[in-house]
Each structure stands twice: as C-alpha cells, then as structure tokens.
C-alpha cells in the first residue's frame, strides 16, 4: 500500500523523479555494492536516458549516486566538480540494451581490482528496478537489503545459505540464481531479504564452505 509520506514526498533533487531520483538510486545501488566510491565508472545510457542525460540532469544524478551522496543533497548539481576533486573518473557512452525500459543505464565500475556491472531502470516516481548484477539477471527494487553471492555449484548450496538466514528469522523475499557457465563449478545467487541482517549472520554466511564471495548491499532508503 502506498503511504501518505510517499505521496507528499520525498524530498529530492529536481527536475524529475525518473530522471534524477531514479537515476541516482540506481548508481547509489552500485555505490552500496562497493560500499565506497569506485575509481572509475562508465555509464552506458540506453533509450531516453541517452537523449536527456544533460537536459534532465540524469548524468549529474548518476555521478552523484556513485559519489555516495544522499538523494536530496543540494550539492548533487555540482557532482561533476565534487567527483573531480575526489579523483573519481567516469565517462558516458550510448548503448542499445534491446528490449528494456526506456530509462535504463548500464554501469560498469572498478575499484582497485574489483569490478561490478549493474543494469538498472528508472521506472517512474523515483522507483527503480535492478535487472542485472554482474551478469546475473534479477528483478529487484533496491528497497530491501540484498545479498550477492558467488558459490560452489554443488547440490544443497542454496539450502545451506537459506538455513543460516532463516535461523535468524529473516525472510527471503526473492531469489535469483545463475551459473557462470555450464562447465564451471561456480554459480551465483542474488537474495532479496525482508530485513537487515546482523553482522554476525553475515559472518556466518561468509564462513560457509560453499561461499566463495559475498556482498551485502544495504537497502536504498527513499528518505536519504
């Protein structure tokens, strides 16, 4: 159910919820993946994002998100200068991602030797849909905390992960699974959770033998 506070808000940076707020939330999601500003990023703009990235401020919003700014920080409009000072390099490119929402961006970012690729769409009213994380298709809103896990592709892998999470009485809202390639012994899973996880649970998950790597992505908060 939509709440009154969402109708009379949020406080945000203009000029439009799909072109600034939504764009910024997509790149903020990427920021949360790294938990910091990456060194480099390329924004591949698809559809109407490609035509409007200056006139609607989409470009600045994307940069601001990766700088970790709050979605109503008045300095979003100066994100280009701020990023320069912090040594964050980025470029914009056009791309055709095919049959996706017209307001879609693919963000490829690197920090040290870590690299992530996220595709997200701004679907209206500031809401977003992340449709791919590191080449794993998914369909998440970013409003819930998310686990991105790389694991051994063995029977029972999912169950053992789910067991740790549900032992701590956190519900799983959605699961996306994929195999890197048929022959590889590595698989990926993305779990959307109903609640934030305690650090201890996150550590328990990391200690599982089947877990190769794991990222815990905080939920995007509409208000900040």
């Amino acid at each position, binding site marked *: 159910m939509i709440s009154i506070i969402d109708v009379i808000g*949020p406080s*945000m940076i*203009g000029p439009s919820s799909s072109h*600034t707020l939504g764009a910024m939330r997509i790149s903020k999601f990427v920021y949360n993946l790294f938990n910091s500003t990456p060194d480099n990023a390329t924004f591949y703009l698809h559809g109407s994002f*490609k035509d409007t990235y200056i006139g609607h401020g989409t470009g600045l919003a994307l940069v601001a998100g990766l700088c970790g700014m709050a979605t109503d920080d008045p300095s979003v409009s100066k994100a280009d200068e701020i990023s320069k000072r912090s040594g964050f390099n980025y470029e*914009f490119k056009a791309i055709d991602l095919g049959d996706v929402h017209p307001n879609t961006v693919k963000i490829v970012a690197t920090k040290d030797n870590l690299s992530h690729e996220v595709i997200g769409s701004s679907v209206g009213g500031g809401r977003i849909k992340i449709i791919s994380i590191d080449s794993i298709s998914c369909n998440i809103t970013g409003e819930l905390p998310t686990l991105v896990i790389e694991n051994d592709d063995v029977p029972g892998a999912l169950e053992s992960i789910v067991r740790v999470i549900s032992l701590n009485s956190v519900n799983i809202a959605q699961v996306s699974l994929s195999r890197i390639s048929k022959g590889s012994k590595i698989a990926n899973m993305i779990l959307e959770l109903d609640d934030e996880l305690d650090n201890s649970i996150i550590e328990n998950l990391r200690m599982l033998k089947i877990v190769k790597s794991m990222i815990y992505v905080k939920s995007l908060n509409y208000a900040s």
Partner: protein
Amino acid sequence: MNVKFFNDLVEISEKTGEDLHKVILNWEMLDTGYSSEKLIENTSKLLKVMEEEYASKKDKAFKTLVNLTGTNGKKMYNYVQNAFVGEKVFKAATIAVTMAENNASMGRIVACPTAGSSGVMPGVLLVLEEYGIPRDRLVLSLIVAGAIGKIIATRASLSGSEAGCQAEIGSATAMAAGAAVYATYGSAKQVSNAAALSLKSLMGLVCDPVGGFVEVPCVKRNATGATLALLFCDMAKSGVESVIPLDEVIDAMMSVGRSLPESLRETGKGGIAITPTARRLIKGLNDKFKISGD
C-alpha cells in the same frame, strides 16, 4: 479500515466527531503500519525542506538545466506590492514559481506529489504560515493533503505520463486546496469540496513539456495551481459545494487521462511542445545534449 473513497474519511469524521486528520492518521496506521508520531514527524521534515528552500532562494535568479525559465520567481518577488489580485494570492504564486524554478535547476524540492508540480503546495502552505497559521496546523494540513493525494494515486494516477498534467498540477491543486481549508479550520466536507472544485477546473489539462524538459509550461502551471487552490479554499468555505463529489471527479479525471493520446502525456510531442516557437527553442538544444555516440 477499508477506505476506497475520500468520502469514507469525511463520513467517519462527521459521524464520530473525530478530527479529519485523526481519522486519516488511524487509517494510515492500519493501512501501512506507519505510526501517527512517525508520520507527523516525517511530514514536519518535508515542510521544513519547503521552508528552508524558499527562504534561501526567494529573491534569486536560477540557472536552469536548459534555461527556458529561471528569472520569473525573482520578477514576481519584486512586483508583489503592485499585485492587483492582492498580496496573499500573488505571494503564493510567486513561491510556487520560485520553487518550480528551483526544481528546474536541480535544487532540492519536495515531490508533493511530483517534482513537476512541486511548487503548488509550498506556495499555499508558506503563505498560510506567513499570515499566521501555526506550523503544527500546517503539518496536519499537509497530512490531509496527502490523504487526498493517496486516494487519487490509488483510484487514478499522479503521473503526467499516465494521465496528463491534470494528474500532476491538477492533483497538486486539489491537495493544496484541501490543505488550505483544513489549515484555516474549515470542515471535512469543505476540504473535499475544495479538492473537487480544483480537479474539475483542471480536468483535461494535457502534459506537453517543451523538449520534454520540466520547464515550459510546468513552472508557470505551478502558479496556476497555487492560485486556484486558494480560490477554491475560499469558495468551499463560503459554502459553495461541488455538485459532483470528489471521488467521482477523481474517477472522471482518470478516464479522461486514459483517453488522452500519447502525444499529450509527457512525450513532448503535442500541445505547446510542438508550436513553432517551441520547435525553434529546442532545435539545437537536442544536438547539444546528445551524447557522442558509440
């Protein structure tokens, strides 16, 4: 508490003698789990953003994203004393335009209910505040406005791309008119009448932003909204009623929205967006803003 109509809220308030905002707070708690304290606190924060932004921008010229607007708020600010419509109305319009220009220049705004229409509510609320309505009352009035908007969002739409500008500026006006009635201690029924009169008067308004940018006609339509909201507040409080009840007007608005062609729903392909002057203005802009391709 299954509330589908705004009139349900009005009736509960009338039957129980409970204040309209209390009925709404109860409904919201049952509907979304949002506690009254939290809702009041967060609403107060949104009002604070409106207050702060206007205080820091009120006599400024803006450099907007595509520069089709940006100095109108300042011009109006300097003209207030001469306004034939009177200081209150003209100030409301001035605030609305200033906040909309702030939006167009990537300023901080409150999307109440959308970014394009974000000047209407501060226009009305900040004038009421200036003329002595206590801030606490304004917070409650903003919640009442939120209830009007929520009913519109669930029965119809608040989006220009779905239902035209009637859904954005129209809804903002209805919400602000209701808020103004409540702020000035009008009855629940008058709140609903003021909102209905507003939506009726903007019925059919198309969404036709020049170049697709939230500048022309969006900025000045915020003045329309703030002005009409104050007018319909007074009309409702004088006893004028909307012959067609608010909930039916909302449904009618949506059915008009559905029959609007796509060219009149935020595509920049109809209405004033395709006038010769508009075409001239955006020619070049588009090339300037295109990305150097892949």
